[in-house]
């Protein structure tokens, strides 16, 4: 069964052991994921910062790779670092744009971090779907690939991709409602 986590984790373990080829493949893969991750979270005016953020995160992955604990999921570790870099970026950015007090940018930057928080919520919710479904949903609904593309690369039929996604979303919706009900109590 193809899974981003299994694949990246295997590459990371080989990299920690010193395998430069696996490491090159890992960094390339990670860079692609990070680019999408940052582009989706940056305001139009700041899209140009995405590549800086990708590079900064790759550097951080490199210099702090010892902090990856091999019994934990690699994607969660990487996500925590990317998220830290993004929040740090917003913080720095906000300091820069708050200097002129009546600048509309200020409010705008604030909105951006709210949007990022929403995205994080989406990702947390996605975690509640089974891993296989999660990946299907992520690739179609968030990365914007077509059903046909996903079906081809996973070896599933288009129908079963659609059915999985539908069930996954229903499960997530149910969970959301459950949360709302809990909040009311």
């Amino acid at each position, binding site marked *: 069964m193809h899974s981003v986590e299994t694949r990246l984790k295997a590459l990371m373990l080989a990299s920690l052991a010193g395998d430069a080829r696996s490491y090159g493949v890992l960094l390339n893969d990670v860079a692609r994921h990070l680019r999408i991750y940052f582009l989706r979270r940056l305001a139009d005016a700041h899209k140009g910062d995405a590549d800086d953020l990708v*590079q900064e995160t790759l550097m951080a992955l490199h*210099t702090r790779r010892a902090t990856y604990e091999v019994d934990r999921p690699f994607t969660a570790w990487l996500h925590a670092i990317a998220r830290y870099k993004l929040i740090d970026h917003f913080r720095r950015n906000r300091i820069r744009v708050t200097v002129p007090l009546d600048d509309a940018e200020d409010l705008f930057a604030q909105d951006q971090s709210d949007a990022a928080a929403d995205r994080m919520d989406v990702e947390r919710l996605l975690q509640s779907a089974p891993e296989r479904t999660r990946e299907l949903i992520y690739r179609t609904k968030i990365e914007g690939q077509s059903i046909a593309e996903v079906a081809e690369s996973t070896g599933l039929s288009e129908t079963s991709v659609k059915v999985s996604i539908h069930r996954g979303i229903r499960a997530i919706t149910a969970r959301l409602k459950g949360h709302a009900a809990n909040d009311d109590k």
Partner: protein
Amino acid sequence: MQPMMTNDLIARLAGELKPVSRLAVIRRVVTGLGLSLIASALLMWWWLGMRPDLAEASTTMMFWSKFTYTLILAAAGAWAVKRIAHPLGSIRVNIGLIAATIVVMIILALVQLALTPPEEYMAMLKGHTIRVCTFNIVVLSLPLLIGAFWVLRGLAPTRLTVAGAAAGLAAGSIASFVYSFHCDESAMPFVAIWYTLGVLVAGLIGAITGRYILRW
């Protein structure tokens, strides 16, 4: 499509890859805190001096209670630094352990007070070094705080205020351990209040400064 800069960076990083030991994080924590423990101990020895009656004191119950109390706090604090050094790290367990240790110490202090005539209460609470005890512990914690910050800056804490608090608690508790070799106070209530306060003040200093100093 990735920009050339990213590809160059990847090639460079892959080129300089070296194997990483699974013990690398622990090794950094031990090195950083170990060296700053030596610095703090030397500072205590040069500035305050060892208590002159150390040999006799080491046969007393009170010396060993202080020793054990500060050592447990120090171990929990150092372990917290290790745990918060990882992205997604949490120090809830360590905070629980530290809180439980403090509660036990307070209970022991109350028991000791209960066994003492009321007119001696104030003497047990104030000792003869009340004015300097907490301050000295905080000063002795400064080299350790620098050491703990050095440890964390090379690793990947993602919640900086919590990481700073962990560094401060570790620094304060190790400093109180160092200080117990100088301090000749021998009442549980004194230790329960003023030593603990020193540890907490150091933790607070770490929490406040951490979010600025620990950024990476």
